[in-house]
């Protein structure tokens, strides 16, 4: 059995026939070739696969594409506009908030969601809110700095 799923991804409606067991992250990576969304643990713990579904952060490895039928999904590829990095991406670059970069797409998507809900977060809030995103390189210090700077840049 396949089902037709339509999801608006980064502003573009995309329809594909998929098996019902297709995860959203597979839909993005394998059907749309949007490989910026990473699969780290595949057990909804590491957060490398975080995308926004109707504006809210979700772990794309733990939602079926079918569950996102009709939704608007934003991935890391959808953040930059007009050849300019999103303020949160720019903050990660500026503060060297990554080493290997594997966790970075999910980290940035969670950070953007955090900053939208919490425009002026304290360091404690940032550390608490990022508990669903694991980074095995940096020790989080520069990530926290970047998220605070990115949130500030987003408020303009």
């Amino acid at each position: 059995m396949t089902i037709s799923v339509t999801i608006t991804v980064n502003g573009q409606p995309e329809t594909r026939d998929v098996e019902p067991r297709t995860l959203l992250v597979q839909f993005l990576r394998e059907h749309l070739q949007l490989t910026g969304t990473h699969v780290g643990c595949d057990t909804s713990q590491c957060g490398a696969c975080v995308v926004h579904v109707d504006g809210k952060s979700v772990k794309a490895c733990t939602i079926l594409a079918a569950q996102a039928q009709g939704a608007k999904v934003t991935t890391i590829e959808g953040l930059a506009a007009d050849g300019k990095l999103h303020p949160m991406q720019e903050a990660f670059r500026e503060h060297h908030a990554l080493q290997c970069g594997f966790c970075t797409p999910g980290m940035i998507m969670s950070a953007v969601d955090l900053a939208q809900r919490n425009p002026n977060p304290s360091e404690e809030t940032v550390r608490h809110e990022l508990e669903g995103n694991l980074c095995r390189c940096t020790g989080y210090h520069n990530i926290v700095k970047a998220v605070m700077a990115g949130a500030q840049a987003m408020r303009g």
Partner: protein
Amino acid sequence: MYAFNYHRPKSLADAGKLLGDASDGKFIAGGQTLLPTLKNRFASPSDLVDLTGITELSGISVSGGTVSIGAITKHGVVATSADVKKAIPALAHLAGLIGDPAVRNMGTMGGSVANNDPAADYPSAVLGLNATVHTTKRKIAADSFFTGLFETALEESEIITKIEFPVPKRAGYEKFRNPASRYAMVGVFVAETADGVRVAVTGAGPCVFRHKEMEAALAKSFSPDALKGIKTDPGKMNNDIHGSGEYRAHLVGVVAKRAVQNALG
């Protein structure tokens, strides 16, 4: 995951029929527990019936000393609801401790309660607040809802529609988390309700349970000190790689005192 058929009905009647027609169907709400279970091939349902398209299962309302929460209401919504924060702050606090922000944007109250994971948070609030679980067939009191490890009083095609929480005089929740999974190693929900003091413990044993000795002590004096010296039987605790029965039994005492402190504000 093994292959399955997927359905997204718009009404409870259709959902019940789809499950009845399936050879081995399962309901899915947020899927934050079910999907990992399927990925591990611990279950292989023939059909998934998605309940999140049924709008009447959503929403929060407060009236006459009762907070009513629709089954597909997400943890993140409960955690940030001004109504819940005002009426039962401990319930909003508990919801905000489940998983992480992304998990809270998908996971639902009804899904968590129906699944009755021994380490889930919500069952302790349902039992501790003496809530009533409304289903497509009946109303079930919290005391007879949770029947064992991943077991509830729900029948095969019965769907939780909403959960009604009586507003307590005061309540508090404290959780000692497993740092990796963020599930409760031990979570304790204490409440001073119209029917007396209730203490519900999750994470520690195979199923959420009421701690009657603690309830009796807190009924006499609602203070952390009232719990001094009260023992919990290690033989009735979970014993696994995360902690021994003795460790969990000790944690129950520590966490319960903090929950009472939280309730006192």
